[in-house]
Each structure stands twice: as C-alpha cells, then as structure tokens.
C-alpha cells in the first residue's frame, strides 16, 4: 500500500496504479467504453427511423389487433346503468332481476337507440348466445313506445327472451371490460353457469383445425425438403451457365399469379382433369374409378408444396454453394464409399440450409389460406381459413384475434423448441 503511494509521487502527474491511461489521464478502459457508447448511440440513431417505422406500422397495429381478443368494453359503454344495477343480482338465484334493473336497461337503451349503437351490442352478445342480436334489434324498435312504469312487463311483452334467466346471465357474465370468452371459443370451450367446459362435440372445430394446420404444414415442409434437396444439389454442382438457366426455372413460379398456379392444379388434378385422363388413356385406371386428388388434403399438400418449393430450394442452394468440394474428395480418398461420403461428410454441412428452408416453408404454410380454400375441399382447410371468415364475414374480430394470438404463440413455441433441439445459430440463408 505504502509503496504504491511512493510510486505515485515519484512518477509525477501520472498515477501509476497498473491502469493504462490515455494522454489526459483518464483510464483507457473508460475511454474505450465511452467511445463504444458513442458508437452504439450513433448506430442506434441511424436505425431509429426504421425502428420507429416498424413499431408504428407493424408492431403497434398487430398488438392492437391482438388486444381485441380480450377487450370487451362494449357492454359497459353501451349499457352502463344496467351493468351497475345488475352487479347486485345473483345469477344463481332463480329469479329475474328486479324492476330497478329493467328501468336502468330502459334508460340505457333509450340513449343507445338514439345513437344507434344498441344493435352493435346485440351482435357482440350474439357471439356468445345466438338470438341476442335479434333481441336487441327488436327491443330497439319498441323502446320509444314504452310508457313509464312496470318496465319488466313491457320488456317481456316486447320480447319474451327478457323473461329468460339465461339472457340476463349472459349479459352479466360478459359485462366486465375484459373477457376470456374469445380465447375460450378459440379453444372450443365456453363458460356456462356450471363453469368452463368443452363445447358439445358437434360444435368443436378449432382444436381440430389447429392440429390439422400443424400436421399438414409439417407434411408440406417434408415434401418440399424431399423434392427440393436433389434440385438444390443439382443446381449447386452444375456449371454456372446451366445452373443459372435452371435457377430461372425455379424462380419462374414467382412471376405467375398465385391464383393462376392454384387454378392450374385444379385443371391437372380434378377427376376429369389431365392426369386422370392420361391414366385412363394408358389403361392404368378404370374410367369409373378415377382418382380423387383434389378438394382434399392431397390437393392442398400438392399445390402448396409446388408454391413453397422455391423457399426451400433457395437457402439450400446458397448453403450448398459454399461447401468446398475437397471435403468429399478427402473422405473418398480416405476410403469412404459414395454414400458414406455424402451422408457423413456432405449432408451435415447442409443442415443450416435445411433448417432455414424448413423454417421458412413451415411458417409460410401455417398462415396460408388462399390455396387451401381453393383446393382443400373440406378436409384440407387450415385454421387461417376460419380466421379469414371471422375477419371478413362474421365480423367477430375478437375471436379472429384470439385464434391469431394462439397461432402466433404456437409458432413461437415451435421456434423455441427448434432452438433447443437444433440451435438457431445453425440456420443459414447463404
């Protein structure tokens, strides 16, 4: 301790404590950190516009859309007094709410009808219990003609459903500003008076569709890999001139419309189509027993494999391009036969390409809906077809958002598993 102090003095202005210092005396480490920090700040500022753009136009809208899966302000906003009055009512008790609730409903609906928002609430509650939308539409027409006093009788006269306990239970159950209702529907479940239970068997669709979407996407990924690997190998090992030519053929489908490509498969695969005609002509099959290759899972897998094949070939090709030929040559000179050289030496080096291609194809196919809609019939449609239905036809955006959130979570989970098993740093696009 004392000796360092002496050194300190003897060296003059520069403190010698074993720390490297810059000319002005600040420790070099500190200077470096500062410089690095400045560097980081500069690069952050450089990407800031892009980051902001992505946040505003990509992350925020998606988050907003996904938030709809739990949001349920509409009940409280449309009939606030009723919700408040209904809080006193015990849904287990076998009696209708009292006159105060009916009066509150009358006051609420009077305002809602004037603003024409009561039918919107009806549509929302109709998702949970069918008949609600008609109930609110009908009552809305009658509300102006209601007299003061004995609202209960007047409401029941307007529509007998107001005298049904279940109507009130549904309103009460869904009066909170947040709801798990959409997520429950998305998992084929519902909350009844007895708690959460699965829907009756003849109404369950979504779990089955999630399962089918995953298994068929895996099947599509595997068939893309089986078809794409030899093509990529060929492309990577042909002379540049020929391989460029072939590469154009691989990219050709990108230049045709998706709908045209899908419809072309219809022409080829249908029962009176080209392939069946040919097979009948060469007497391989009988005219009465033509093959069913479309409007089922086979059709979806064939058409989607064709559409997604380039996404498998391109990363495979660019990885194979970088594999130096002398590894295989070395293996062979050490006595390996063709298969061993390929399987033990060449193939492991293509794994990053396989990983990248498989992830690309899998994620694209999980969200596809146009092709399954056109060639999938009933057994080949995906969960995204139902999401599209709820977005554009039924306007049940809450359920669509819940289904979308679950799909996103599933993909992330699979991504995580992939990272654990294969390792994400093992993925290479080129």
């Amino acid at each position, binding site marked *: 301790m004392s000796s360092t102090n002496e050194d300190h003095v003897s060296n003059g202005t520069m403190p010698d404590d074993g720390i490297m210092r810059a000319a002005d005396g600040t420790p070099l480490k500190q200077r470096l950190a500062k410089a690095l920090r400045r560097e980081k700040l500069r690069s952050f500022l450089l990407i800031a516009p892009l980051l902001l753009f992505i946040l505003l136009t990509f992350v925020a809208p998606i988050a907003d859309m996904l938030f709809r899966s739990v949001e349920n302000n509409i009940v409280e906003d449309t009939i606030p007094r009723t919700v408040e009055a209904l809080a006193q009512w015990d849904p287990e008790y076998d009696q209708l709410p009292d006159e105060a609730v009916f009066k509150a409903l009358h006051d609420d609906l009077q305002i809602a009808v004037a603003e024409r928002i009561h039918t919107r609430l009806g549509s929302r509650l109709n998702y949970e219990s*069918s008949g609600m939308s008609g109930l609110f539409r009908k009552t809305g027409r009658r509300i102006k003609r209601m007299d003061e006093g004995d609202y209960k009788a007047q409401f029941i006269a307007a529509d007998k459903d107001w005298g049904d306990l279940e109507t009130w239970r549904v309103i009460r159950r869904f009066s909170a500003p947040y709801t798990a209702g959409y997520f429950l529907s998305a998992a084929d479940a519902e909350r009844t008076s007895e708690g959460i239970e699965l829907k009756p068997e003849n109404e369950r669709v979504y779990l089955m569709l999630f399962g089918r979407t995953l298994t068929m996407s895996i099947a599509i990924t595997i068939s893309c890999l089986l078809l794409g690997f030899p093509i990529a190998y060929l492309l990577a090992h042909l002379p540049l001139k020929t391989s460029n030519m072939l590469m154009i053929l691989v990219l050709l489908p990108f230049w045709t419309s998706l709908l045209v490509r899908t419809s072309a498969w219809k022409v080829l695969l249908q029962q009176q189509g080209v392939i069946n005609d040919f097979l009948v002509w060469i007497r391989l099959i009988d005219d009465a027993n033509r093959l069913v290759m479309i409007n089922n899972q086979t059709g979806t897998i064939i058409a989607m494999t064709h559409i997604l094949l380039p996404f498998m070939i391109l990363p495979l090709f660019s990885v194979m391009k970088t594999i130096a030929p002398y590894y295989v040559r070395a293996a062979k000179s050490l006595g390996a036969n063709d298969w061993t050289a390929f399987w033990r030496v060449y193939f492991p080096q293509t794994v990053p390409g396989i990983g990248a291609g498989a992830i690309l194809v899998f994620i694209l196919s999980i969200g596809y809906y146009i092709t399954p809609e056109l060639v999938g019939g009933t057994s080949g449609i995906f969960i995204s077809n139902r999401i599209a239905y709820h977005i554009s*036809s039924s306007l049940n955006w809450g359920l669509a958002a819940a289904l979308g959130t679950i799909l996103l979570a599933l993909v992330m989970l699979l991504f995580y598993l992939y990272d654990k098993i294969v390792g994400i740093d093992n993925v290479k696009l080129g």
Partner: protein
Amino acid sequence: MKMKTLLMAAAASVAFTVPVTSEELEPCDNCADEMTIVSWGGAYSNSQIKAYSEPYSALTGVKIVNDESSNEAVAKLRAMNEAGNVTWDVVDVVASDAIRLCDEGLAEVIDPDSDLAAAPDGTPASEDFGDLLVSECFIPQIVYSTTFGYRSDVAEWNGKEPTDICAVFDLENFPGKRSLEKRPINNLEWALLCDGVAKDDVYNVLETEEGVAQALAKLATIKDQVVWWSAGAETPQLLADGEVVMGSTYNGRLFSVIEEQDQPVKMLWDAQVFDLDGWIIPTGLSEERLNRAKHYVKFATDTQRLADQAKYISYGPARQSSAPLVGKHAELGIEMGPHMPTDPANAKNTFLYNYEWWADNRDDLDAKFQAWLAQ
C-alpha cells in the same frame, strides 16, 4: 365522318328506351362532384355502369370511380370506420351483409319514401319495393336466386331429367357428383324440404337442436358425392368440365353458361331461394358526399333504371313497377323475361329466405356446419 358519328349517337340513344333529360332529374344542392361506387366487378359491375353510372355521369357531370371490393366490403367498411376515413360513397352488398352493417352502425338509415323515387304511377317506393326492404339501411336493387343447374347429357340418368329439388338428394336416379356452397345457408333448408318438412315449418324446425341434426343427417346421405364451393364461379366451371352433374349457384352465372357459352346445362328452378342485392350508404361521410350518394341512389333505383339493368344481366329488378319494362338482352338479343328468377314459369315453387332468422343464428350454425364438414 361526322355524319357517321351522328348516326351512331342516334342509334345509341334509341337503345335507351326512355332517355332522361337533365330537366327531369332534380338538381343536387351542396353535393360533391366525385364519388366512389363499390360493387362486385365482372359482368355485374358492367351492367350497373351501363344502366346507372354512365347515364348519371352524362346528366350531372359527376366523376365516378368504380371499385370492385364488394366481397370484402363488410370488413373494409369497419376498418375504414375505425380509422375515421371512409373513402366509399355507395356500396353494393347482399342483403344479409346489409343487415350486419346496419347492426354495426356502419350503414346510413334510409327513409324509402323521401330518399327513393316513387314509381311512375305515383306508388311510393316503400310499397313498390314492398317486403324486399329487409333492413332500414338497405336499398334493394335486384332479386337473384340461388338455384341448381344440371348437365343434360348424363348417360347414367337414362334420359331422365331432374324436375324437383329432391333430385339433388336422389343418388339412385341421378348418380354423380354435386356441388353445394360451403356454408349452412340454403343447404340446410333444402335438406329439410326433401326430408318431409313443410315449407312454412323449415325455420321452426331448424331452431331446435334436433332439426339441425335432421338437416345435417339428410346432407350426410350425399356428403361423399359433394364438391363444396366458395366462389360463385366454381359451379359453372365444374358443370362445364363435367366434374359435377348438378350444382347450386347464382342464376345469372348459370345464364351465362347456358346462353353465352352454350354448354349442355339446364336450369332446375324448383325451390330456388330468392336473395337480394342492393345499395347501402356508409356512415361517416361528409355532408356533400352524403348528398351526392343519396342523389345517385335515388336515380339508380328508379323504375326505369332497374329495368335497364336487366338488359345486361339476368337478375330481376327489385321494384314491382320495373317488371313490365324488362326487354331484350343488349348484346344477345334474347328476351330476358323468361330468364328472370321472378318469371312466373320459373317461380312456381320458390323458397323464402328468412333474413332475420339467419342474422341471429348464422354464427352458431356456421360453427356446427363447419364441424360437421370436417368430420
């Protein structure tokens, strides 16, 4: 040269039986001079442009932009409304979508007697359209029907031809694949009709769990022979390719397969289900644009204009007063009357679609139907 154009102009004006002069059209005060009209595209949009938009532009000088987004109009209107930037002025939708848009507060409420033109004999619009005014936001335009077409050259049928709807469920006499729409609407009703349920009872039966099960059980008897379609163009294509022997679609699509493409296909009008297509005006328009939209709609749905549209497409006008004015097809020169779903010979047995009932039960039954399809 000048003479020739004059002659052509004269010929064109003869084609329009009753040309409207600008004096007859009431002026539009405080109106926008540009508007966007949304419709379905294809032959249907063309018929509207020829019958409504071109004469309207010629009379008023309004610039009309045509958009072909009707099949996604419901979702887009909601998105536009939430963003507070509605870019459409008049939108063509089917009646069930109009009900949904009206419920969601996305369509303007219309007063038929003040917003729509009366018939030439003075009958108010509310009576002229009658019970086709299925929603307070909806302005009916045409009546179309979902009905069956069948191939007239099927060897296995031994010269028999289907005459009633139940032939669809009769695999013994009429073997072969059929195409049906991939949704419960219409299919459940037809199934019940052919399972011994009286026409008036259909919706009462469907109201119950057992009724839905009964309808699905009837459909199950032909399930493995059905190709399910989701776009109206599919059945005509499947029929033309011989992929199916009969199939349901919109009657106008079958008209073009039979008359324009000359395929060996015939109409089975039995138990056709009438449906409506018409205009709605979106909410959230500025005052000038709203005035313009109302002015256009009033013109485009008057008695003569609705009859004019039938020259270009085989859909029946929604006004009673238009029916006698329906003439010949503008290009094919065939009499359009017998091709209208509303023609007495075709409308011997029709089924009335219950809008209110479907508005309430559509989501529920759709889930059941999809689950059944997937089994």
